[in-house]
């Protein structure tokens, strides 16, 4: 009986080790889009190599110590009738040894740790894209002071270029986390915290708030869209149109009301009317409206909302149906969200708003 339980015990004790190995060997980024184990940015690589160092030592120690433990359990099982074992109280040599050896192993972790602390603590020199990140309950705001862009939830960055984030919060403590590109850093109101990274491939990298920040902490997602330089440049050019940071949100004549009236684009006119009278304008900046130039409003800037792939802080795909659901009853979609309609919108208003918002590419 002891024999079988010993084997079972051994199997069970090693299960977590097997799990860890599986996790390193078997998981691919496509299975876990938010993984920390497949870094795609230089900051994340620094962290990852340190992680692998600690994991290696942890695994070695784990196998050795658990191995000895299981061996001892197996080897020294006894019966009540057995003679009393030798009454050893201690062994100074052994005790010194197992104090010193772990300390030495720790040094192998400590040295690269301290090196990495200093390497990650400040942005590497050279040309950088500066972006301000502001956490809100429960969405992310991004401002590109140099490029004069304000956007939300989806962070566009160019590939192979260092991005320097200056991060703060508009309300409570949040934590900005982009696992595959960098790591996480808490953001505090009235304080700026740095983070930087250089993405090495283009693609779509999800992340999310990592510090508990209230009711909808679980739905405070974000995405980082790493673009090739030409795509990024085009995106920048598009976003600058109507940006609050460019001529206080003034739009070109081709996007003015009179232009739409001339082309008979009733959606833009009716949608805009719904935007103004439905109450959206109280919280959202929008190109072509009176709030276009404001950066202090409570909700995300919607000037280019049609160009985003998701809405509601990464919760829903940006489709007409989802947008319609969201505008019909935001509290049903995301309970407690600060998106509160002053009055229910009519069917017509919603239809026009959906078309209007999606048209703002």
């Amino acid at each position, binding site marked *: 009986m002891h024999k079988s339980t010993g084997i079972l015990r051994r199997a069970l004790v090693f299960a977590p080790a097997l799990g860890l190995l599986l996790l390193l060997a078997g998981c691919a980024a496509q299975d876990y889009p*938010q993984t*920390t184990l497949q870094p795609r940015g230089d900051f994340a690589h620094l962290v990852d190599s340190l992680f692998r160092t600690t994991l290696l030592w942890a695994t070695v120690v784990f196998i050795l110590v658990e191995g000895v433990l299981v061996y001892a359990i197996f080897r020294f*099982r006894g019966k009540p009738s057995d003679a009393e074992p030798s009454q050893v109280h*201690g062994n100074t040599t052994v005790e010194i040894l197992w104090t010193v050896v772990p300390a030495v192993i720790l040094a192998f972790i400590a040295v690269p*740790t301290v090196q990495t602390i200093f390497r990650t603590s400040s942005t590497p020199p050279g040309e950088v894209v500066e972006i301000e990140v502001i956490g809100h309950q429960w969405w992310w705001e991004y401002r590109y002071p140099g490029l004069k862009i304000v956007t939300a939830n989806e962070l566009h960055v160019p590939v192979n270029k260092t991005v320097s984030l200056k991060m703060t919060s508009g309300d*409570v403590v949040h934590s900005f986390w982009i*696992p595959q590109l960098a790591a996480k850093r808490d953001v505090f109101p009235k304080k700026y915290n740095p983070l930087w990274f250089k993405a090495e491939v283009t693609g779509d990298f999800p992340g999310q708030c990592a510090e508990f920040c209230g009711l909808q902490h*679980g739905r405070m997602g974000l995405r980082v869209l790493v673009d090739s330089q030409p795509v990024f440049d085009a995106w920048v050019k598009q976003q600058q149109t109507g940006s609050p940071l460019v001529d206080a949100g003034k739009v070109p004549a081709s996007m003015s009301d009179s232009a739409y009236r001339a082309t008979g684009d009733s959606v833009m006119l009716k949608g805009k009317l719904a935007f103004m009278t439905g109450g959206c304008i109280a919280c959202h900046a929008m190109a072509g409206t009176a709030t276009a130039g404001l950066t202090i409003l409570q909700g995300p800037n919607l000037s280019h909302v049609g160009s985003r792939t998701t809405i509601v802080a990464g919760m829903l795909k940006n489709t007409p149906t989802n947008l319609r659901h969201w505008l019909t009853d935001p509290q049903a979609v995301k309970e407690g969200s600060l998106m509160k309609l002053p009055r229910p919108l009519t069917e017509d208003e919603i239809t026009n708003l959906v078309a209007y918002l999606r048209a703002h590419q």
Partner: protein
Amino acid sequence: MATSVLEHSAVHHAEAKSGLWSWITTVDHKRIGILYGASAFLFFLLGGIEAFVIRLQLMTADNTLVSPEFYNQLFTMHGTTMIFLGVMPLSAMFFNYFIPLQIGARDVVFPRLNAFSYWVFLLGGLFINAGFFFNAWPNAGWFGYANLTSAQYSPGLNTDFWVIGLQILGIASIAAAVNFFVTIINMRAPGMTLLRMPMFVWMSFITQILLLLAFPVITVALVFLMMDRHFGTHFFIPAGGGDPILWQHLFWIFGHPEVYILILPAFGIVSEILPVFSRKPLFGYTAMVFSGVFIAFLGFGVWSHHMFATGMGPFADAFFSLSTMLIAVPTGVKIFNWIGTIWGGSLQFKTPMYFALGFIAMFIIGGLSGVMHSSPPADLQQTDTYFVVAHFHYVLFGGSIFALTGGAYYWLPKMTGRMLNETAGKIHFWLMLIGFNLTFAPMHILGLNGMPRRVYTYPAGLGFEFWNGLETVGAAIIVVSQLVFIVNLIVSLRRPRNAPADPWHGATLEWSIPSPPQEFNFPEVPEVKSSIPLWDLRRELGSLPEPQRVSGAGIHLPNPSYYPLVAAIGVFVTLGGILFAQPHFPWYVITLTGVAVLFYGVYRWAFEPAG
């Protein structure tokens, strides 16, 4: 054995005292221990139910079993309950019952203060949970990070129940810590020098020091928070110049020693069980003592490792990282000494031993993932993810709960006079070990693959579904394992009291007296010559005779008193009144009434004959 039962009913007058009033007025450390144990176990089950609902909610992606608000209440109360109302008072049960017995004392040094601690603890625990009935269970996390807890972002009473309840519990902890501290210093049997104390007493002793030094800090932080919420200050409110980071510092200056408060008693229990069931003394007794002292001392210099993501700067990061790694050394020494204890022994596989060995195996894993967190850059990926959740459950469940359960199987026969069923105990162990690993091992994988903590759900497509589903299955197995324990306990309690005084051939003094002990513990105070007095005696005599119950006539015992309860109610009303602190409401009438009751209780207590 039969005669001892007979004699028990015939001779022992003290146990004739029964009924509710005798429990309310009791100052007997053993009865108070049982009260702690019963209350804590109920709270522990409540915390377990909360955990299981959490697991059901996370079983599938985008699940809507519970609302986000209720989920946040569940995880807040799960953490708060398990730490303050589960593991700490379960340890307190063993402190109460076994510190006096192990050091050969008749009671703790201040029996009425002991009763006071228990009542304050119970009222505090009920107070925090009372929020449930007002739809205001605490919901800002057991760590209560400012400024989410400010009146602006947490307007309900939820956080008030938490802030005030924790202050009440803090008073209970400090009062109990003073009591046990002095008890261990001063009530030891003749010959029991500090370096002959049982290891459980040693680890408990260190725990009391940590309680004394850590709880004042959280008390101050809670007072600040209460002032922010009700009295117009801005300690943690940025708009008024306050800094939410200060909360984090004060919280973790308390919070890290608190981790050792939760685990050191477990170390002590395991250090009692392993030698007895290896039939071999503890390996490296002195090293065990000093590693414990070292862990406690260093425990005050590592708090900021909970805050690497806050951006403290490279020098602070490096300092707190290295101090944290340093703690791994004495912790490793303890693990190696436990293995050294079983090495060369003659291992007797009784249920307590199963849990003690399971403890070592699981604690190693928790310790190693802890070392992985101590590296700040790596921690920037791990913190606030399920990797951390896995880590501290391996320490606090795989560690503390396994050890406490082992302690229950080891010591319940002494407390109740009844043996627990061995087969059921082993089923309990295997189910718990399997369920535990199924629940928490996958959390390592989830955390490293990007699942953050404290989220009420997760979207499909991030790869989290499979592991979460598996974890919920594991949690169900844990639930079954606890049911096995409860059934075992109930069945055992319905049987006659026929446990021998020394069912395991123990080494320490509690096994020298009948099970359960008589009210006065020891008919005469024993002399101690080593850390294993009973083994010495057995070696001397060849075997130990079953101790007989004797008349306690002439043995002086403290009188029962209800003033500790009165004083506890005073504390409860004083602090509870602040819950009603609204403008234009005379809440201070309630608080002042509480102060009056407290003073009344304390004065009557002080001038009451102790016996």
